[in-house]
C-alpha cells in the first residue's frame, strides 16, 4: 500500500502526522516552540485570533451591506467557492449573485450594484401593526 503512494501522498501523510503531533503539546510546549521559531507567542496568538475575528466580521459586513440594499440572503445559503478563497450566495428575492472573500473582506456581485428590485413587494409593515 505504502509503495503505491505517490510523492504527493507521502508528503501529505508526513505533514498530517506533524499536524496531529501539535495537538498533543502542552500549553508551555506550544508557547516555547513558537518562541524557538523566532516569533513572539503572544503576538502570534493574537494574530491568529484576529484572523478568526476577521472571518466573522467579513460575514457580518457582507450581510449588513446586503440587508441595507434590501436583499434577502439565507445565512445557511452561503457556499464555498471551488478553490476555497471566497463564498457566494444569491438573493432569495431577486436571485442576484454576491460573493465575498473572508481573508480580505472583498465583496463582489450584481447584488451590490443597487437596491433589490423585489424588496418590499411582499413585506408587511409590521411597525404599523399591533403586536397583540
Amino acid at each position, binding site marked *: 500500500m505504502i509503495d503505491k503512494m505517490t510523492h504527493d501522498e507521502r508528503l501529505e501523510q508526513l505533514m498530517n502526522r506533524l499536524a496531529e503531533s501539535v495537538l498533543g503539546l502542552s500549553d508551555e510546549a506550544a508557547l516555547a516552540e513558537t518562541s*524557538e521559531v523566532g516569533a513572539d507567542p503572544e503576538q502570534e496568538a493574537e494574530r491568529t485570533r484576529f484572523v478568526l475575528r476577521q472571518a466573522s466580521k467579513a460575514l457580518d459586513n457582507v450581510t449588513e451591506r446586503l440587508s441595507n440594499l434590501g436583499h434577502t440572503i439565507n445565512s445557511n445559503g452561503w457556499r464555498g467557492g471551488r478553490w476555497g478563497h471566497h463564498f457566494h450566495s444569491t438573493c432569495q428575492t431577486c436571485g442576484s449573485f454576491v460573493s465575498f472573500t473572508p481573508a480580505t473582506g472583498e465583496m463582489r456581485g450584481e447584488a451590490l450594484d443597487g437596491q433589490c428590485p423585489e424588496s418590499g413587494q411582499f413585506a408587511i409593515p409590521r411597525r404599523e401593526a399591533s403586536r397583540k
Partner: protein
Amino acid sequence: MAHLLPYPESPAPPLPPPRSINASPKSALLVENDQSLLSFLRRSLEDDGYAVRTAANSEEGLRLYRDCGPFNVVLIDYCVPPNYGFGIDYLAPLQKHGIGLAMAIRQIHPLQGIIITALAYRDAREVPRPLELMHIPLLVDISNFQLRSLLEKIEVERAIEALTSSELLRLRQFAEFRVRGLGRAARGRTGEDLLQEALMRTLIGAEDLQKGRHWNKDVDFVGHLTGAMQSISNHWKRQFKETEAYLISEFPVRDAEGQEQSPLDNVASEHAEADQRLIEQDEKDRVLTTFKDDPEATQILQDFLDGLKKSEIKSRYGLDERKYAATMKRIRVKLLGRRNGGGQGEKHDR
C-alpha cells in the same frame, strides 16, 4: 446607569437564587414582557440547551445581569418597558428601552453576546440604534431558524474570545502543517486561509460540508476547528485530484536500485521556471534534506513517510517518550522556522 433607566424604582418580585444558572453549561437571560413571545423564545432556548433566566422589564433585566451575568447570550426585546407599573404603548416609535439595557450591559461586559428582538420592524434597516450597537444581531423574524443562526454566531464569537494563547498557537501550527501537506493542491492557500475557511463554515453552520459545518457543542471549539480543517483540506485535495492534470514528475519512476525518481530528473531544460516548479514538487526530499545532519529526525520522518505508527518508530530505534518528543519538537521548529523565513519562496503557485 441611572441615566439610562430614568424611571422611579418599583418593587420587583423576589428572584430565585442566581447560582444555579452559572452551573449550567449554557445560560441565557431573556428580557421580554410579551407572554407569548417569552414562552416561544424560552422554549427555543431551552430546546437548545440553555438554562434561561427571564425578566419582564429593563430594570429587572439589569438587576439579574448584575447578579448572575455574564451569560452566554442575552436576548432583549427592543420595546421592553423600563420597569413595573408603567403603561406601555406598544405603537409608540420611541419605546426603545431594550437599547438602553443593551448599552448598560455592554458597559458592564463589553464582549457580552446580545441579541435584540425587534419584531415590530420588518427588517434590520428600520431599527433605530446608536452607532456602537450598529452591529448587534437583530431578530426581526420570529423563527427558530433565525434565532438558531444568531445564537450560533454568538457562541462562536464567545468561543473565539475564550481561546487561550496556546490553543491559538496549536490551531495555527495545525493549519500550517495541513496546508503544507497539500503540496500543489494548496493552490496558494495558507494556514490562515484554512483556519478562516473552518470558521466560515462553522458560522454558516449547515451540516453538509459543501454548505457549512455545524459545531456540535459536545466537542470543544479547538477540536471542532481542527476537525473542520481536516475535512476542508481533504476536500481541497479531492477537488484538486478530480480536476487537475498531473505533471509527469508526479508519476513515480524507479531506477535500477528501486529508488523513486522523477522521469524528468535527468532531462535538462532551458526553462528555469519549469525547472523550479519541478524542484518544488519534490517537497518530500526537501524536507528530508533539511534534516540531513539530524539522524534521529531523518529516521522519524522517513518512518512517517513509510506509514509507521509512533509506537513502532519508538521501539524500532529504542526511543523513549522524552527523546521522541524532543526530536518531534526539533522537526516542527525547523520546518515552521524554515517556512517563516522562507517568505514567498515557500508558497505554492495558485
